[in-house]
């Protein structure tokens, strides 16, 4: 692959520019579904772009108590981490741009980084609200990370390999993992809600208690980048779950070659990620916020054991020679 193609891949498609438009579109879908479920009209289509542009054009303040370098660096590093995570997820075929054995672990690792950067953002803002928010981010991390990893590892266990491409290929040869591992799918969605800090797990950014959590002191362009980071994290998480459980680009019964296959695969990918975003929006409209210890209890007492049960079933079936 030449350098020019690599740069176009990184910056245009499926890299930064595509992700910029697609993630803001997902935010629009999320807000619109949320509004419709509350019997409202909701924001117009251009709303997320207007918000982003407005924030970019505003003054970006740095508080006197904040650590200027870290305060500026955190949104950029967080954005880079989630964009990189998306590059390893297969979109239009069973191969991603740079597939290798074990890319599932890299994606899982890169999707953990935003929580760390949010904590750093809170810590270096020099504001009590953001510091408390940062601690809550880390506390919550120990809650949702265990069930999330257990849930996304069960497809890898069934397929017997750590590579996302081979997991998709296994689903093409056999059956979608949502049919085989429904419990893991539910646990993965629930812990993704925790990862994205959305209702009912929006404890770190709880508006009525600590204003906006780690993002309290952010304004202008830096805030725009932080919001973009959260949006792209949502797209990357939804894409990861759609690849692991809904076979990514696959449309059952349709077998094409060449350019039409890429187009159909891409459309299938968009529909599947939007389906996950739709589920997330419904969860946001249906539930109320939990307290931090209720959240950790729920994750470690219920979600993690459910994922373990699913793993035990998988291992049992493997030993029985059915899988």
């Amino acid at each position, binding site marked *: 692959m030449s350098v020019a193609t690599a740069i176009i891949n990184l910056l245009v498609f499926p890299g930064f520019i595509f992700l910029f438009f697609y993630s803001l579109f997902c935010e629009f879908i999320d807000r619109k579904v949320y509004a419709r479920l509350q019997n409202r009209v909701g924001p117009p289509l251009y709303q997320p772009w207007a918000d982003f542009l*407005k924030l970019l054009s*505003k*003054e970006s303040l740095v508080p006197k108590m904040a650590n200027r370098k870290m305060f500026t660096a955190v949104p950029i590093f967080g954005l880079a981490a989630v964009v990189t995570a998306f590059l390893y997820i297969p979109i239009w075929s069973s191969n991603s741009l740079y597939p290798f054995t074990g890319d599932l672990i890299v994606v899982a690792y890169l999707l953990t980084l935003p929580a760390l950067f949010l904590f750093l953002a809170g810590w270096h803002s020099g504001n009590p609200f953001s510091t408390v928010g940062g601690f809550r981010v880390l506390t919550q991390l120990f809650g949702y990370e265990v069930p999330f990893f257990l849930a996304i590892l069960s497809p890898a266990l069934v397929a017997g390999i750590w590579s996302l491409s081979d997991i998709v290929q296994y689903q093409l040869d056999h059956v979608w993992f949502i049919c085989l591992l429904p419990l893991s799918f539910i646990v993965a969605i629930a812990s993704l809600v925790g990862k994205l800090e959305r209702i009912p797990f929006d404890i770190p950014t709880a508006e009525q208690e600590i204003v*906006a959590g780690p993002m*309290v*002191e*952010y304004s202008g362009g830096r805030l725009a980048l932080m919001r973009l980071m959260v949006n792209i994290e949502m797209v990357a998480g939804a894409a990861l779950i759609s690849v692991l459980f809904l076979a990514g680009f696959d449309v059952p019964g349709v077998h094409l070659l060449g350019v039409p296959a890429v187009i159909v695969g891409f459309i299938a990918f968009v529909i599947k990620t939007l389906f996950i975003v739709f589920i997330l929006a419904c969860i946001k409209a249906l539930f109320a916020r939990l307290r931090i210890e209720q959240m950790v209890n729920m994750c470690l007492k219920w979600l993690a054991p459910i994922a373990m049960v699913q793993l035990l079933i998988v291992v049992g079936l493997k030993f029985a020679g059915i899988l």
Partner: protein
Amino acid sequence: MLEKLVGWSRVKSPWVCHLNTGGCNGCDIETLAALMPRFDVERFGILLEGSPRHADVLLCTGPITRQIKSRAVRIYEQMPEPKFVIAIGSCACAGDVFWGCYNVLGGIDKAIPVNVYIPGCPPRPDAIIHGVVKLLGALDPRYNELLEELKRKGEIHVSGE
């Protein structure tokens, strides 16, 4: 071109922050009612933000008391430019029944510059939306058409204008 785009985005996404500077809570209840699903101000891109750092518009209710003055100025200064202030209710406009009290300085404009005054005790939610749309109309004349449309649909009742 870029300036036009930035102006457009500014008009399309006014995020508000709500501050009670010493009122009786009546205007606060009406302000929150205006932000409820019934009126659905997210149609115009209006979002309620907790932090003044995220906000473009400061909604002030109540007269300025001696105690809140320095805090109100600090909150105003914490907002990034460009920023606007809307005074909601008769107290916020000029002090109203609290005028002349030993602890009251007067309207919001005694402490920070105000862009829009919304009289009423308390103003109805549609009056508050009317005021916000007027502010947007000052930024972009096309919003005056929206105002006419809202009046025609009966979503906003204006008497004596």
